[in-house]
């Protein structure tokens, strides 16, 4: 087999049992690698209805066919599990040397189940699997943990992914970190913490074999040249923080918990502003020619990575405009292993709830928008689950539910996942993408904002054409995330599906058409949906926060622009129709069966269907009894 190894490693960290299992090539062709294969394995390994913190919830690290090839931006891996924040699929991507080492283990995925008796780390090296005690690593930052473990396993070279204090404390939006990067959204770090697993260290020696090396090299050269052209100027010269100022100008930069879509302090937090005031150096992932990372230096000398989403969530979202405070807040999130978007979103909820006098333990909470010191204290409290942090560590949806009093209207989330930095009122295609995403309020699994910024649609007006656009964008992203290719390379393809089919064919030896690859994207997306359906999804989960649907924007170019519930409902209907799902968003049985068959999860689907029928019978009996 080329591009894949055709096997996975399953480790139960409770019993210590390690088991290698073959993966048929047809299954890999059906769902590729990365997010696709991860979703397939999640569907198979997670018992229906499993508690995300239960030992049985699998935490799955997935490689992909392009990893280890000369193709730029492909040193990436996926982390897939059932999210403790949403109760649905959590699929995250991270990158760099850990991704390369995962592939060098000679496996396509690592499935971790069980719960270690006490804090431990997993050390996998050339066919050996060890579970080592990690008591001395408790409370250490991911960076410190990587250093300690690398020293312990020396002279064998290793790459490490680990959790910080937030993961250990089961903060529901904790991340898994490697080399300063994060599998960020959905709380995979908390799932790892629930397994008492502080870290995973890898060292492998298997080299990736491709079917047609000459062809792969030729395509790699072509993409490498395009990757350093003007198409990627923004990423190469400014990084994603280049979004801040222009998003403010376009009225799409959410501020003060989505009260506004403009922010007075945006220039100080812009890529252009920070480049002059705080820039330290440019950096990049392994095997990447774009090198989008920007490191900034605070006045006290700390060097810190900043991304647009982090700047948005810890800056405008919380009303903070001081770059020093945002840098320190980002540094704390990295040290504790916290998703910056959910951290900012949950703290913004706390600020509004506190202002209304409804937050318990008020002394611990940031008292007002713009209070940088309060923001830092709030982050510490969340990571340690201290005081009010114990409530906020649950995320905005659960916190609002616990506090009650109508505070849910300030919880800006979809399916429990806090909103990213794109205001849906002034980006109508994005509004739909956020509402229907299986992951929750996610900007990455459709990048539906692309249509809004393209000029092909009126971004301020909703219409029934958006469903097809979002479905197509999701399919595109599903392929990108399963090959895996970095999103920042996506515009370097002239014809994405045709070129990707050519590329995947050269790597795997498969004869693939563009159409087959596009259908594969749709299938992967459908499988995510099927997982969510199995875990209790209903049409009510595809919706946006009340504020977005009831408060028009004020200020900026989008002043007065609104999004009504009827407009959203119409767009969602058009999306379900584009997907050929029924009016309630349910996947037809024939489509489910075909999808499950191609992705190798037919028996799991049948088990779930059998369980549904049994539940329906029980429900029917219960209903009958109560009627008596």
């Amino acid at each position, binding site marked *: 087999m080329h591009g894949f190894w055709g096997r996975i490693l399953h480790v139960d960290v409770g019993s210590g049992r390690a088991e290698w299992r073959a993966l048929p090539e047809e299954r890999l062709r059906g769902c590729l690698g990365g997010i696709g294969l991860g979703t397939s394995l999640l569907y198979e390994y997670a018992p229906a209805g499993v508690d995300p913190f239960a030992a049985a919830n699998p935490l799955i690290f997935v490689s992909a066919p392009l990893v280890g090839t000369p193709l730029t931006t492909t040193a990436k891996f996926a982390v897939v599990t059932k999210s403790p924040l949403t109760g649905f699929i959590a699929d995250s991507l991270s990158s760099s040397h850990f991704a390369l080492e995962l592939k060098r283990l000679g496996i396509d995925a690592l499935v971790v189940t069980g719960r270690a008796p006490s804090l431990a780390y997993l050390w996998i090296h050339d066919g050996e699997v060890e579970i080592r005690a990690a008591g001395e690593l408790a409370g250490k930052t991911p960076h410190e943990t990587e250093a300690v473990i690398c020293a312990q396993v020396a002279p064998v070279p290793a790459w490490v992914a680990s959790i910080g204090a937030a993961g250990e404390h089961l903060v529901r939006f904790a991340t898994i970190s490697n080399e300063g990067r994060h599998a960020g959204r959905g709380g995979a770090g908390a799932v790892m913490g629930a397994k008492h697993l502080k870290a995973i260290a890898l060292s492998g020696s298997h080299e990736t074999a491709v079917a047609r090396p000459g062809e792969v090299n030729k395509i790699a050269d072509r993409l490498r040249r395009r990757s350093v052209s003007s198409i990627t100027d923004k990423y190469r010269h400014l990084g994603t923080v*280049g979004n801040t100022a222009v998003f403010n100008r376009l009225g799409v930069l959410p501020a003060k918990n989505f009260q506004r879509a403009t922010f007075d302090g945006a220039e100080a937090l812009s890529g*252009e502003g920070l480049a002059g005031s705080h820039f330290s150096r440019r950096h990049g992932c392994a095997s990447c020619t774009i090198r989008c990372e920007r490191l900034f230096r605070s006045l006290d000398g700390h060097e810190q990575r900043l991304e647009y989403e982090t700047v948005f969530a810890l800056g405008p979202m919380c009303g903070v405009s001081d770059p020093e405070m945002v840098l320190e807040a980002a540094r704390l999130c990295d040290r504790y292993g916290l998703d910056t978007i959910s951290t900012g979103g949950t703290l913004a909820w706390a600020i509004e709830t506190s202002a209304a006098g409804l937050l318990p333990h008020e002394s611990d909470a940031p008292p007002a928008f713009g209070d940088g010191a309060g923001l830092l204290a709030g982050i510490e409290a969340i990571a340690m689950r201290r005081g009010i942090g114990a409530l906020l560590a649950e995320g905005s949806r659960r916190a609002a539910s616990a506090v009650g009093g109508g505070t849910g209207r300030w919880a800006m989330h979809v399916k429990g996942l806090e909103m990213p930095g794109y205001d849906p009122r002034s980006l109508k295609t994005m509004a739909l993408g956020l509402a229907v995403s299986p992951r929750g309020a996610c900007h990455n699994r459709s990048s539906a904002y692309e249509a809004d*910024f393209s*000029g092909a649609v009126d971004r*301020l007006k909703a219409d029934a054409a958006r469903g097809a656009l979002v479905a197509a964008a999701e399919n595109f992203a599903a392929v990108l995330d399963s090959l895996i290719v970095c999103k920042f390379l*996506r*515009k370097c393809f002239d014809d994405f599906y045709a070129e990707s089919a050519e590329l995947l064919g050269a790597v795997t030896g498969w004869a693939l058409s563009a159409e087959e690859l596009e259908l594969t994207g749709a299938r992967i997306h459908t499988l995510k949906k099927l997982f969510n359906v199995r875990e209790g999804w209903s049409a009510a989960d595809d919706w946006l926060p009340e504020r977005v649907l009831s408060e028009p924007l004020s200020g*900026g170019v989008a002043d007065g622009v609104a999004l009504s519930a009827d407009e959203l409902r119409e767009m969602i209907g058009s999306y379900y129709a584009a997907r050929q799902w029924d009016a309630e968003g349910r996947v037809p049985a024939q489509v489910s069966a075909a999808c499950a068959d191609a992705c190798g999860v037919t028996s799991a689907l049948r088990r779930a269907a059998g369980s549904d029928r049994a539940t329906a019978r029980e429900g029917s009996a219960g209903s009958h009894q109560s009627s008596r």
Partner: protein
Amino acid sequence: MTPCTVELYGVARMIARTPEVGLVLPPAADFADLFAALAERLPALVGRVITADAGSLVPGYACSINGLEFVRTASAPVHDGDRIVLLSADAGG
């Protein structure tokens, strides 16, 4: 004549070293006229943001009229007093 202002964001601003520039275009001007005038005023943008023939933007850049409507063709008209936002075409991140 058609007076207008070009606001520069991102890499365009860094290259031009200015956040905005005022231009006066001929009557009934379109975006091809605007790019030509901008190239003359800010020659550092030529080849980096504006094509060498000054007739359009290079791939990766886009324009929005008054921050609302994205421009899809160089034949789109520029109106008196327009503020043209010159930005990266890729909003990812």
